[in-house]
């Protein structure tokens, strides 16, 4: 049985471990804190599996490779909600919706009635929206915990001390791998979690705004995750300004959020290469899986599959990068 080490227990590392187990490998995952938690940037993710929406700014490979994500997570036993994504603008920014519609495939335009049918609690607040039915979302923390438990019961060892290299190593350490991948940089994202019993959303909602874009991802127990900030910085400070922007945008989406409980504020830096596309690369017996940027849960399944395939039969898949 082939032995393999995985460095990093974030979303990339866990997905690679799952693919290795699928190939019958004996896998050990090394991470200074070998369980999902606030030390890794996957913890702070939105969990939107939204390849079409991402194509507003991301390149074609992200859309293409992101298609398999929802099915992959479901096959791991993770609860995936396939209700699509809703895209909205406030009154005076309507033209942002036209632009988004021009650039993003797979959407339907909704009028007020169509919107009310999908999201009754937004009835009367917007007269037009886009619905992208082919998208999905999951709860990132639940997904990470589930995957880790599943891997453990499949015999994967999770270890804090990085042992001696033995066989192939899959380096999935994110920004910590800057010692080996100097092109990596951090792109800061900030998020907040609110709890409200007064509003129910069935799917992620993206509010397009020239200055304060927002997404709201509904989670279980009346929780809502707010996100969207993107700052060229690798500091992890939670800034007042970002939180103000997120909360104001949520309030503009629906005033009921003004009465919500502020449960959590978080910030982390996401690993990205200069083209904001992920990369697979090889240095000796180490295969790097990195640069997932804002597409961790969307692209980790495809990257993990490609990384393991490349290791087994030395193919050069999409996102392969020669140094």
């Amino acid at each position, binding site marked *: 049985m082939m032995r393999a080490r995985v460095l990093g227990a974030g979303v990339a590392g866990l997905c690679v471990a799952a693919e290795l187990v699928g190939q019958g490998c004996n896998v050990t995952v090394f991470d200074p804190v070998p369980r999902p938690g606030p030390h890794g940037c996957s913890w702070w993710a939105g969990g939107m599996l939204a390849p079409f929406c991402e194509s507003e700014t991301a390149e074609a490979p992200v859309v293409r490779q992101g298609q398999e994500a929802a099915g992959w997570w479901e096959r791991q036993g993770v609860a995936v909600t396939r209700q699509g994504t809703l895209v909205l603008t406030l009154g005076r920014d309507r033209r942002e919706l036209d632009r988004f519609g021009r650039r993003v495939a797979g959407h339907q335009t909704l009028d007020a009635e169509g919107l009310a049918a999908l999201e009754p609690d937004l009835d009367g607040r917007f007269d037009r929206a886009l619905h992208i039915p082919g998208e999905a979302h999951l709860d990132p923390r639940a997904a990470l915990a589930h995957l880790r438990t599943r891997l453990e019961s499949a015999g994967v060892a999770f270890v804090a001390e990085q042992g001696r290299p033995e066989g192939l190593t899959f380096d999935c350490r994110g920004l910590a791998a800057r010692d080996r991948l100097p092109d990596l940089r*951090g792109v800061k994202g900030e998020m907040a979690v609110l709890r409200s019993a007064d509003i129910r959303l069935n799917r992620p909602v993206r509010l397009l705004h020239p200055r304060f874009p927002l997404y709201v991802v509904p989670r279980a127990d009346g929780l809502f995750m707010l996100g969207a900030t993107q*700052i060229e*910085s*690798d*500091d992890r400070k939670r800034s007042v300004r970002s939180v103000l922007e997120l909360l104001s945008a949520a309030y503009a989406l629906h005033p009921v959020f003004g009465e919500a409980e502020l449960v959590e504020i978080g910030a982390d*830096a996401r690993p990205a290469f200069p083209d904001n596309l992920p990369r697979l690369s090889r240095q000796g017996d180490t295969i790097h899986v990195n640069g997932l940027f804002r597409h961790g849960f969307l692209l980790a399944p495809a990257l993990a599959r490609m990384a393991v395939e490349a290791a087994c039969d030395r193919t050069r898949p999409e996102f392969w990068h020669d140094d």
Partner: protein
Amino acid sequence: MQLYGTEINSRLMLGTAQYPSPSVLAEAFRRSDAGIATVSVRREAGAERGGAAFWNLVRDLGVTLLPNTAGCHSVREAVTTAQMARELFDTNWIKLEVIGHADTLQPDPFGLVEAARILTEDGFQVYPYTTEDVVLADRLLDAGCEVLMPWGAPIGTGLGLTNIYGLRTLRAQFPDVPMVVDAGLGLPSQAAMALEMGFDAVLLNTAVAKAGDPAAMAEAFARAVEAGRLAYHADPMEPRDMAAPSTPVIGKAFLS
């Protein structure tokens, strides 16, 4: 074109924010031949200098960097940010923004003059983001500015030159002051018009960064800027009401 004694070979300046990725940003710069890149300092700086990786990518563009005080709403904030920028980028140049109105991002004329004076006395070479107001322009020149950056329209709107009369007046009042139309441009034709009117250069960001194909749009602006400058030097005809055919009519069977 000389700005504070430095020869700049391109009349197009580009901002570095909001691109889909640093690679797209670099490609846009390559296709535009822009000579100056503005770079925002405030949110990315902080004690840890968390934006260093991105700034290194911007430095690699090989163009002259003009740090800005974008997002500053007071004189004190703008002055502090300028000082931080000088330290970070090792330049006395600063594009000075003091925002007076949150919704329109209109400059605060009073704060702008005060900050310009403080920074000039501190050895900075100030590029003030201003309106087309001639009185304000006069005060900024008094405060030590040698370049002016009047807006075309509010930042990020893409509305083009919204007060052509005001911009013409400003250009005519200070014929020897280098002026860069900054902010509000959405289309290359608007940039061409600014150059046709005798402005020395244009600075834009959103129009390129948020285009579907930023690199192509950057090149489109570069060509428009070149066309506008050529036209300005070519002494354009005056508009007139009387139609004048450009081919002679004599000898044609025009009575048929």
